């Protein structure tokens, strides 16, 4: 594929209706002969193999394989030759069974409630905590991947002094020699830099430390900060505030580059509440419509019912237009798409006064946040559909820029960096690395020996959240507790421990340990020890302190300030975004996240420079061209990617890549966007220049993998229109397949799944959860390029409508577990076959790897182990594997099993209890459990009262490629669209 279709032609094709209604890639719209060949070959890797050897070579290879085939049966089963029982068995640990602990997942200092499943003392899997008042049982990709983070072989494993292995004792001795001097001067010249802090315990410790050293300065820095949110509230209300939307009370939502569905600390709670509200509105026959304007497509704008690309610089003007409209002014004139969108959104807001909701995202300007506050105030939404609370993140005494400035002046004598990586993520203009050299003593503590660690005198390994005690607050203020599920693997210490040591020179050796500090923080003054222990024990069991969410703050708008003049811009506008899988780069070493297709581009293992079809046409840039973005004497080079829905003159750079730590997984992938980030406006850069370098390199992407042939793959239900689902009364069409054998009475259930496409936001939590649960291997960039991505569950992203502003649809595709499965006919050795509960089984030990089933599968959900992807894993990584799922060897086919291990567990429990029926909800698949929007329902379809049966009664329900008469057990509920849908969204 060229990645270079004629865009004008495509635009015309789509406009005239000749093109496909739903399309995945520009190549698919172009429908070139190359693309058709690609599809016909089906598996690019296999096609290449088939072409390779001639007859003689083939016979030689076959003879050799035949002769050597038996040898694969030889070899020892290493590690399983001994049984090693406990000496004293701990009370609750039963070897071979799961034990779950309530804890919190930490995302940029914020928390979400999780349950950590451990087996024989090893954390294996993260589930959402359904009782947690903020996250409500959902999880995000980072929480799911945190178990891999724990066992990550790239983690820092030792104290290092000037790049050489050292010890905690040496560090303590060195610091203890210095600390009397700090006390004497009151900490003059000591600077503490942390990542975002919401932990009340850490906050109390920092306060204590600042009391001990009055002159100490505390800075908070992160790749993705919340400064814009707090500064925006300061401009509107005079003080920093959090904004919490209440979607349930809203009738319409207008998002000005909002990000409530995008990866971020609030994603789990916000997307869950949004989809619940949307489901509620649908139940009443309505639609909670979402109007979204964004300079670059996000998950939030992808779910919009009315979306439009807009330059980032125009967002404030749009907000002012709405503000004028709310004050009785006229609707914005103009016939461009943005004005048309603004009229629609404005009308909806005015009609829904007091029940509308305007929202702006983390990456917008403080001015826009302030305007949005004023707008919500003017419309009467504040206090109705949204509320404000005190900021959850602690405020330091200065920004990263202030710190850089102080270092430049030589005012910093000691720099203590705890859990931050400014050398990598600070804007290059701050020149952090060079300025750090001016500091005589630099201490860095982090999970990784990263860029900052390499520039520090001392590097200290921190404990992973799964190894630590602690507390953390969710976006709504709920205090979650963190409890260790395993002893620290590498003798890492917690942040609390280090702060305690830096304050009193003792820390956990002689002073309080992390648990003691935690208890000390939460024990009320004068509280009885036993009463506190009971209260603490209860909170620990729940995973959070009950009723600890922030109270609603009464707010009053301050006098409006005149808008700051907008600088005239020439050249292109660059916006910066955190990466959709690895965020700001903190998690760049996690292979699961690297190989997780980015939700919109489906690219793996790198970041790209996203630009609009218009800009590509104008600058004659094709996808895959290496382009250069320059501004203020700095430049980055990266691969261009033509992104439908991108604003015409905007270029998007994503953070998190371009890491430079030798021997790490992330080293050398992509470009470093921080090079160009301005200090004042960290998310936006105007007046940049875009040039072609003349080089090309294609990206590894999964967007055309598993392309299905057929009709009505994605369906959209316009509210109030005739149902688009499959008719429920029609008799099943005749089939050549023998009818399923009569169900005997001891069959526990007939399993089935329903996926609500309206609730699916494309967040990828399910894909990562599946990977963690089912031991799915990571294959690497080169293998993905060959079409060998191994995920059992893929999320297809479809576009519909015009090239420049399409609507976006996500469709998760696991195995359909067809009742009449084409794959089963193809297998010569009966390695794939049905059981009486309707599961399409894959028997690894029978599979000989003909791959016939894969080519017979119309849904393209089967994955083949071309190479030994699971071998050669370090022992520490093997600790993460789920012992209930076979680790597949080379040469066998695999696919989604509906988490048969979880079904079996429920079935055995029921069997031991005289075959009591398995209660609805007792079996939850990994993908279902992870989903923050509850898009996936799983259960017994033979039971008419089960939730999955309820979902299947919805008139939106349809079978994917149902006309093939495969009778899939996985079915879909069509996504919703407004009654008078915009182009491409009509049912």
């Amino acid at each position, binding site marked *: 594929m060229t990645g270079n279709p004629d865009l004008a032609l495509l635009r015309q094709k789509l406009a005239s209706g000749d093109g496909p209604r739903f399309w995945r890639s520009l190549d698919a719209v172009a429908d070139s002969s190359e693309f058709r060949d690609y599809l016909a070959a089906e598996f690019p890797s296999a096609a290449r193999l088939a072409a390779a050897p001639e007859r003689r070579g083939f016979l030689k290879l076959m003879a050799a394989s035949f002769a050597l085939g038996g040898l694969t049966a030889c070899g020892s*089963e290493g590690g*399983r*030759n*001994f*049984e*090693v*029982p*406990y*000496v*004293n*068995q701990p009370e609750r640990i*039963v*070897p*071979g*069974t799961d034990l779950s602990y309530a804890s919190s997942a930490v995302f940029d200092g914020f928390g979400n409630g999780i349950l950590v499943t451990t087996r024989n003392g090893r954390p294996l899997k993260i589930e959402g905590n359904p009782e947690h008042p903020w996250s409500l049982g959902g999880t995000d990709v980072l929480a799911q991947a945190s178990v891999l983070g724990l066992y990550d072989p790239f983690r820092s494993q030792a104290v290092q002094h000037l790049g050489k292995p050292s010890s905690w004792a040496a560090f303590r001795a060195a610091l203890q020699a210095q600390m009397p001097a700090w006390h004497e001067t009151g900490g003059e010249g000591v600077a503490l830099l942390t990542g975002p802090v919401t932990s009340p315990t850490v906050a109390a410790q920092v306060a204590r430390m600042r009391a001990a050293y009055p002159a100490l300065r505390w800075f908070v820095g992160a790749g993705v900060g919340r400064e814009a949110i707090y500064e925006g509230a300061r401009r509107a209300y005079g003080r920093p505030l959090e904004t919490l939307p209440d979607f349930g009370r809203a009738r319409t939502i207008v998002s000005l580059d909002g990000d409530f569905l995008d990866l971020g600390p609030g994603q789990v709670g916000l997307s869950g509440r949004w989809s619940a509200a949307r489901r509620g509105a649908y139940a009443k026959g309505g639609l909670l419509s979402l109007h979204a304007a964004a300079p670059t497509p996000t998950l939030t704008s992808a779910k919009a019912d009315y979306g439009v690309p807009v330059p980032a610089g125009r967002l404030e003007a749009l907000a002012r237009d709405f503000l004028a409209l709310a004050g009785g002014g006229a609707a914005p004139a103009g016939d461009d798409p943005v004005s048309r969108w603004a009229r629609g959104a404005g009308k909806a807001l005015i009609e829904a006064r007091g029940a509308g909701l305007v929202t702006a995202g983390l990456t917008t300007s403080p001015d826009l946040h302030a305007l949005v506050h004023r707008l919500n105030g003017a419309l009467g939404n504040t206090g109705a559909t949204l509320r404000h609370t005190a900021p959850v993140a602690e405020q330091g005494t200065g920004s990263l820029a202030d710190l850089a400035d102080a270092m430049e002046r030589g005012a910093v004598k000691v720099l203590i960096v705890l859990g931050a990586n400014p050398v990598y993520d600070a804007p290059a203009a701050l020149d952090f690395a060079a300025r750090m050299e001016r500091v005589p003593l630099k201490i860095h503590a982090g999970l990784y020996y990263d860029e900052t660690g390499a520039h520090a005198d001392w590097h200290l390994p921190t404990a992973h959240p799964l190894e630590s005690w602690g507390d953390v607050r969710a976006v709504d203020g709920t205090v979650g507790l963190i409890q260790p599920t395993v002893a620290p693997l590498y003798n890492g210490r917690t942040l609390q421990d280090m702060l305690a040591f830096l304050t009193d020179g003792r820390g956990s050796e002689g002073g309080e340990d992390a648990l003691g500090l935690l208890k000390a923080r939460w024990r009320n003054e004068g509280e009885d020890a036993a009463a506190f222990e009971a209260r603490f024990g209860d909170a620990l069991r729940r995973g959070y302190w009950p009723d600890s969410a922030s109270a609603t703050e009464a707010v009053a708008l301050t006098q409006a300030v005149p808008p700051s003049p907008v600088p005239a811009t020439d050249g292109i506008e660059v916006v910066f975004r955190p990466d959709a899988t690895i965020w700001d780069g903190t998690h760049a070493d996690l292979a699961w996240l690297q190989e997780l297709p980015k939700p919109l581009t489906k690219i793996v293992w790198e970041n790209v420079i996203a630009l609009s079809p218009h800009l590509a046409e104008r600058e004659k840039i094709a996808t895959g061209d290496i382009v250069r973005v320059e501004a203020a004497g700095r430049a980055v080079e990266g691969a261009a990617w033509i992104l439908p829905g991108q604003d015409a003159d905007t270029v998007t750079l994503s953070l998190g890549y371009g890491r430079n730590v030798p021997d790490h997984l992330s080293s050398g992938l992509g470009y470093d966007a921080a090079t160009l980030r301005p200090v004042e406006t960290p998310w936006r850069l105007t007046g940049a220049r875009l040039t072609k370098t003349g080089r090309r390199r294609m990206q590894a992407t999964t967007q055309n993998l598993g392309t299905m042939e057929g009709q009505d793959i994605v369906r959209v239900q316009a509210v109030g229109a005739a149902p688009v689902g499959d008719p429920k009364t029609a008799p099943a069409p005749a089939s050549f397949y023998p009818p399923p*054998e009569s169900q*005997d009475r*001891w*069959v526990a259930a007939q399993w089935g799944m329903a996926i609500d496409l309206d609730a699916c936001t494309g967040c990828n939590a399910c894909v990562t959860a599946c990977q963690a649960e089912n031991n799915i291997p990571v294959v690497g960039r080169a293998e993905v390029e060959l079409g060998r991505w191994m995920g059992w569950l893929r999320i297809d992203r479809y576009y519909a409508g015009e090239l420049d502003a399409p609507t976006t649809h996500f469709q998760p595709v696991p195995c359909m577990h067809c009742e009449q499965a084409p794959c089963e006919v193809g297998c010569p050795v009966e390695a794939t*076959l049905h*059981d*009486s509960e309707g*599961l399409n*089984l894959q*028997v*690894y*030990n*029978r599979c000989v790897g003909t791959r016939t089933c894969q080519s017979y599968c119309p849904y393209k959900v089967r994955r083949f182990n071309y190479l030994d992807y699971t071998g050669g894993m370090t022992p520490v990584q093997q600790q993460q594997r789920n012992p*209930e*799922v*076979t*680790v597949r060897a080379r040469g066998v086919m695999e696919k989604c*099993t509906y988490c*048969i*291990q979880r079904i*079996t567990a429920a079935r*055995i429990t029921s*069997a*031991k209890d*005289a*075959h009591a029926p398995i209660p609805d909800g007792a079996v939850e698949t990994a993908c279902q459990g992870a989903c923050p929007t509850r898009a996936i329902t799983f259960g017994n379809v033979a039971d008419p009262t089960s939730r999955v049966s309820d979902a299947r009664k919805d008139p939106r329900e349809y079978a994917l490629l149902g006309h093939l008469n495969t009778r899939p057990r996985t079915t879909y509920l069509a996504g919703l669209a407004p009654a008078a849908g915009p182009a491409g969204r009509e049912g």
Partner: protein
Amino acid sequence: MAQLFTPGADAIYRLALMTGVACLVGLPVLAAGIVRSNYVTGVGIAPAQPVPFSHKHHSGELGIDCRYCHTTVDKVASAGIPPTHTCMTCHSQIWTGSDMLKPVRDSYAQDKPLEWVRLNKLPQYVYYNHSVHVTKGIGCSTCHGDVTSMQLTYRANAFEMQFCLDCHRAPEKYVRTPDQVWNMNWKPPADQETLGPKLVAQYHIRGGARLTECGICHR
């Protein structure tokens, strides 16, 4: 010109041919035999253990119940290997000076687990659950043999797939009444032919077709 072949050449040729054919047939048979032999499967061979523990003495002669040590056999998938603490419940009182038990006392004193050589091993793609078998009337000795007569413990069966399927195809031949599950000397009673199907119904065992589905053991 002299004769190239001696008169005996034909015989040698025929012998070579026949040996070839015999090897073609015989070698696979031999290989199959070796793979199934006790030497390879370990059936009947008691490996050296850190402590020469005698099931015959403990469960046979003293009559200690299986579940005293294998505590989770009727609760979860794995039967459980007793922690050193379990040994010491008695051996802190009796045979306290025995040389044979020194590794046990050392393990307890030094908090270092005993490492037993594993006897019963299933391939990694086979998932077996003790608790469901035990609650459904399948006795220990059906798989593990008469452990009460084993001075040193050895593997009683090779656990090939055929072995599992024998029972999964016809559970009525092996199923016992609940009180007989722990009986190591159980022999099918005379009325097993009538009792078996009754028990199968009583235990709600799903029988034949369902129990031989691949997903029951493989996942």
